[in-house]
């Protein structure tokens, strides 16, 4: 593989920032929505080029390696499809006057800033830079969650702001502690925060400091992952913001925070005397699964329902990575990818449903398969997928998580399976009410593109039936890196 004549990392970061600056000044919302799609597409192309050309050498600030390339590729792909969905969603919001053109300029600019922040967090080779990027991503999503300026939206934004800030603050304390641990070994200055330097020397770090740092980092970034008991911001933020943002939050931002946790987990695993970080993640993951599963039954709001489902699935993923080992890590990676695709597809469907019915209340939406067959059945397929039924992809990844748990820690498998079954029941119960029965509400046709939704669901279906061998080999390699 030959290297590219220019720095791809820089291109991945410059496109969204330039687009954000441009979008903030353009008045025409049809054009800005298209430009938003174009910018996301160009970023995706830049990221995909990483697979075909030699990767740039890691510097003091940026790094592309086998682990984060999975996250970046997934991130920019879902970012791109969501921007397509967003274009049709936004047109409708303008028509019914929930958003003004000025709001939209702001919205599109923020969308690109968010893509920038997430890409930066993923390719940062510097734990300080990663922290700044995650903070930036938090800020932009707070602003977007509050964009409707209703009571509920402001409350959700405020809650997210306060809890997110506390999480971010704890993560910074953890980052400072990692620096303190590195100080005697690596020496003062920037090197003591560079990831590739840290992982090389971590065996000589003070294990006690590292342990304490990891607790702070897990709590801090764990808040952003939405792990119970730090999840309180997540359902409100998902329910009250624009639906494309719900899709990006669930599908992408939670993964970015999880990536940060995984990086530090790797650091601890490389120090022979530090605690094994797995059990901590395992406990938080399991708590999230069981807690969210029971909470699913009491939801009256359709977006809150799927937000709790996101907590459950992030719990499963954290559980899998906490378990560790080649099989569980493989399952975790696969589950993360498929969850991102499925959950964003569900949010696309939910966005169309909420727009056409004019409500998010589950009780007021019935008989979708009768009034809107394509939309209704897509929602059914999405929910069946997220509930973990075969032949869709999530069945396979959940099966791998459960079977690897049975093989290694049979006792832990019992609460895990219980959580999965309870969530399964809740989701099917709710979707049967939504999709079947006597139709209610508006039957007006949906003026929107279903392409992103179908594309995601098709990918999830294909993944459940047939995984291409190169993909399997690649995931196995990354799982081995994760240890």
């Amino acid at each position, binding site marked *: 593989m030959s290297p590219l004549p220019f720095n791809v990392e820089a291109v991945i970061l410059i496109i969204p920032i330039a687009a954000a600056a441009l979008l903030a000044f353009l008045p025409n919302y049809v054009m800005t929505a298209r430009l938003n799609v174009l910018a996301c597409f160009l970023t995706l192309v830049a990221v995909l080029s990483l697979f075909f050309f030699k990767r740039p050498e890691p510097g003091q600030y940026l790094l592309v390696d086998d682990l984060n390339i999975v996250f970046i590729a997934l991130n920019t792909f879902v970012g791109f499809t969501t921007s397509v969905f967003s274009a049709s969603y936004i047109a409708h919001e303008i028509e019914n006057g929930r958003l003004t053109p000025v709001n939209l300029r702001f919205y599109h600019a923020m969308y690109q800033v968010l893509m920038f922040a997430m890409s930066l967090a993923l390719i940062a080779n510097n734990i300080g830079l990663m*922290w*700044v990027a995650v*903070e930036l991503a938090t800020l932009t999503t707070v602003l977007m969650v509050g964009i409707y300026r209703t009571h509920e939206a402001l409350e959700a934004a405020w809650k997210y*702001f*306060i809890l997110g800030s506390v999480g971010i603050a704890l993560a910074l304390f953890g980052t*400072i502690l990692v620096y*303190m641990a590195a100080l005697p070994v690596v020496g003062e200055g920037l090197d003591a925060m560079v990831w590739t330097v840290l992982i090389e020397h971590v065996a000589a770090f003070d294990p006690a400091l590292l*342990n304490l740092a990891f607790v702070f980092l897990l709590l801090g970034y764990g808040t952003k992952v939405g792990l119970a008991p730090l999840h309180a911001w997540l359902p409100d933020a998902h329910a009250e913001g624009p639906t494309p943002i719900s899709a990006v939050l669930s599908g992408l931002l939670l993964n970015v925070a999880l990536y940060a946790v995984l990086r530090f987990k790797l650091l601890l695993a490389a120090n022979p005397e530090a605690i094994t970080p797995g059990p901590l993640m395992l406990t938080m993951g399991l708590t999230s699964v069981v807690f969210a599963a029971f909470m699913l039954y009491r939801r009256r709001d359709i977006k809150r329902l799927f937000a709790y489902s996101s907590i459950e699935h992030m719990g499963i993923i954290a559980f899998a990575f906490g378990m560790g080992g080649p099989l569980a890590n493989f399952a975790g990676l696969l589950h993360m990818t498929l969850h991102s695709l499925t959950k964003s597809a569900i949010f696309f469907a939910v966005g169309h449903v909420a727009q056409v019915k004019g409500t998010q209340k589950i009780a007021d939406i019935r008989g979708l398969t009768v009034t809107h067959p394509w939309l209704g059945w897509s929602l059914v397929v999405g929910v069946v997928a997220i509930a973990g039924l075969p032949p869709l992809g999530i069945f396979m990844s959940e099966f791998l998580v459960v079977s690897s748990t049975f093989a290694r820690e049979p006792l832990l498998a019992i609460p895990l399976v219980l959580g999965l079954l309870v969530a399964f029941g809740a989701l099917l119960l709710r979707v049967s009410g939504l999709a079947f029965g006597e139709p209610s509400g508006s039957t007006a046709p949906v003026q929107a593109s279903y392409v992103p939704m179908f594309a995601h669901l098709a990918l999830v279906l294909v993944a459940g039936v047939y995984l291409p061998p190169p993909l399997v080999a690649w995931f196995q390699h990354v799982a081995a890196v994760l240890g």
Partner: protein
Amino acid sequence: MHTFAFDFAHLLAGGLVLVSFMLLYQDRLYALLNVFALHAFVLALSVATQAFIQDAPHLYVTAAIALVLKAIVIPVVLHRIIQRLGIHREIETVVGIGRTMLAGMALVALSMVVMLRVTAEAEPLAREDLAFALSVVLLGLLVMVTRRNAVGQVVGFMSLENGLVLAATGAKGMPLVVEISVAFSILIALIVIGIFLFRIRERFDTVDVQALDRYRGEQP
């Protein structure tokens, strides 16, 4: 043998913990803001001292940010917001002051025990700074959870953040400190603008966060 500079830095870091305790028992908004201004002032002095001891001129920038923005601008702006919005001047606390103080003492004891044990090999100054910083962070969290009032929560968060700046400047030669303190300043400025722009009072008639909970979409 401890030098004067060491003792002075130590005094300031300890002073920050004391001022954090003072934040805990304020039950009037104006008084709370004044104490917070003092908190930020002590932090600015402490950071300037660290800049002098470590001979790191860039830390003076952080000190200046703390002094100008957090000790002067933000308290003044918050004062005016309180006046303009006519927010109730008394702060409702969730638990009594006595119990809050006891909890605060327990948190400080906890952070001393944890940090001093863990950082046995680090330099004495950095190590004690870190222990004090953790105390300030935990006390800030306590202020946040014991206030129902949005302004009270913001002050709690800002004091927590002061603790983080103390920790970051205490870690010798830590890069990106200035950048991080700038990032935090943007965050805080946004929160303050948020209180004003979102006009929580106009929407909710109160800045009592509990009142916001009533608007949750979950209730039938």
